[in-house]
């Protein structure tokens, strides 16, 4: 396989070249948290400190706030204006394998019977350049879900740390087209071997495991086990962190921002952790938090597999790491009764 490599000192040349064609996003602390941010043309220092973003790259496809269309009323009635299409293509540099896989999981929903033009428009307009992990958080558990710290699912181009260089591997045709810079040299067999070692080392760093065998069946059998769900939900404070910052969560709400005869229809992320999420005129089927916790777990590990034959979790560990009370989905999944 004709893989390339690039010396780490030259790494800034890659986004430098790509930014002529793409709006390049890289991991950055500029906003005050870690998020994918428009590259400023200089700072590539994230390679030294970056493990993963706090805000998942999903935000570049399904943003926290999205203007769907604006409207105004004149003498002939209501008029609708769609937002201008984004001409420039975007390139995300440094997406982690767990988050790239998460996009493949989101595609199942947004590219199903209903084709969501906003999400799909951005997906088709974006190239993903992954960087394999060399370090893990102690909340990472990607290996238990068939993923790996150097997995290439969903990315167009993959960089793997092999010491002084990155091995650069084109996964798709879009990835191949990115391999034009003169800073790349041909990777040798020894480089390929180093990449294998790097992959294995990274795997070893993921220390947490989760047993997902028969998990959908177990959850189905335990659905009515109120004692179990009440117990695991006891310390949850029903905030939206684990859902709003989950790379595979996609629930949204739609609201009009209006003043007089004009306005904007916005969709913004919503969370099934909130009691208001299911409030209806007559009743709310999930007023108690154990029902909401159950829904969240089952949606990822039972309902999504039922619908799409895939678990809607990639083991990124954000829900564990960012939780104010250390509610830990691994412990929950591990303790689901067998139902027998």
């Amino acid at each position: 396989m004709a893989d390339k490599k690039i010396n780490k000192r030259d790494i800034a040349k890659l986004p430098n070249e790509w930014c002529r064609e793409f709006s390049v996003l890289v991991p950055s602390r500029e906003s005050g948290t870690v998020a994918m941010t428009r590259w400023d043309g200089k700072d590539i220092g994230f390679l030294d400190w970056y493990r993963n973003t706090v805000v998942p790259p999903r935000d570049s496809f399904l943003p926290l706030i999205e203007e769907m269309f604006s409207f105004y009323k004149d003498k002939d009635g209501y008029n609708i204006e769609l937002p201008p299409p984004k001409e420039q293509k975007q390139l995300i540099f440094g997406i982690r394998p767990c988050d790239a896989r998460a996009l493949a999981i989101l595609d199942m929903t947004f590219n199903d019977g209903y084709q969501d033009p906003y999400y799909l428009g951005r997906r088709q307009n974006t190239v993903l350049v992954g960087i394999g992990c060399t370090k893990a958080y102690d909340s990472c558990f990607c290996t238990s879900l068939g993923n790996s710290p150097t997995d290439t699912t969903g990315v167009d181009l993959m960089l793997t740390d092999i010491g002084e260089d990155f091995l650069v591997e084109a996964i798709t045709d879009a990835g191949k087209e990115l391999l034009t810079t003169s800073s790349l040299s041909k990777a040798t067999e020894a480089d390929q071997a180093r990449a294998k070692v790097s992959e294995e080392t990274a795997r070893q760093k993921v220390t947490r495991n989760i047993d997902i065998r028969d998990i959908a069946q177990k959850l189905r059998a335990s659905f009515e086990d109120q004692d179990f769900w009440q117990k695991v939900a006891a310390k949850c404070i029903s905030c939206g962190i684990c859902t709003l910052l989950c790379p595979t969560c996609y629930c949204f709400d739609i609201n009009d921002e209006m003043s007089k005869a004009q306005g904007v229809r916005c969709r913004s992320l919503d969370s099934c952790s909130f009691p208001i999420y299911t409030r209806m005129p007559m009743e709310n089927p999930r007023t108690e938090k154990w029902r909401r916790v159950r829904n969240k777990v089952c949606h990822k590990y039972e309902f999504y597999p039922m619908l799409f034959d895939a678990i809607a979790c990639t083991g990124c560990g954000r829900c564990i790491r960012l939780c104010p009370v250390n509610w830990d989905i691994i412990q929950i999944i591990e303790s689901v009764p067998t139902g027998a």
Partner: protein
Amino acid sequence: MINSARQQRLIDEAKALLKQGKVRWIIGFEAGSLKFTTTPLITADAGDTSRLVINSFIVNNLSNFLPELEGRIGIVAKGCDSRSIVSLIQDSKVRREDVVILAVPCSGLIDLAKVEQLIGKDRDEIDAISRKDDKVIVTLAGAKREFSISEALYDNCLACELPTPQEYDILLGEPILPSNEPAAGQKKLDELKKMSPEARWQFWKKELERCIRCYACRNACPACYCQRCFVEETEPQWLLPIPHWQDNLMFQITMDIHVAGRCTDCGECQRACPVNIPLRSLTKEMYDIVADLFHFKAGMDKEALPLMTHYEQEEAEDLIG
């Protein structure tokens, strides 16, 4: 009393309370699943009490869970938590006879974000963090580094006015006096106060632009106990659920006004925030204003009437004069 001894005493007391039927629930802390974390332990089972811990990472204000549970509750409380409990009692959200307060004199909690800043590494790479007198000792790749507590504790812990609960049933360990350098906990606020109003406006704009409206600040706060928050009202809709920064600011300011006189500066709002918004700078300012204007500090005096439910004629002079 050394830590392991008071932890054992906590376990014994909690176990006895459950076994003798004196409480239905114990709320305390157990070891968390990640490095340097603890997690709330809420249990009715005496067997679980052996997992209770006391250390420098018992961050949550557990009084938050009191209004949710039915029956008598034994609760582990640091000074700030005990103030929240007193405040909840004053507000008739909890009855004094329904709680058994297991008081933990607290010398301050270690702020992992500050430690990460100090050593320039993620917490995942740290081998150990310990506390000795006025030092925090961080072990990194086998080497020990020492920091003063003023560098490594949470700001609200540095400004703590009540390290040892006043209101308790069982006291675990020797009382600890407040630090005589509360100014160390005001640094961020002092910086903000020195800014011009325009610069401060820009500061908050940037900070609140990344708010994801997860409401962790509200939900982690024991003083925020409304059954239906104003942000969830739909008729009228006070605030859209779209997290534009202006609305995020509106939410924060309204929350601060709502918890004025109830906020005990426990710091949970800021700690819960997943995107590092320095929310304590808002709540502490409100806390100081309440202290100045009304000479009131939430949860410090259980005989006091709740701030916002009564009026004294002499207040008018201060307020309007």
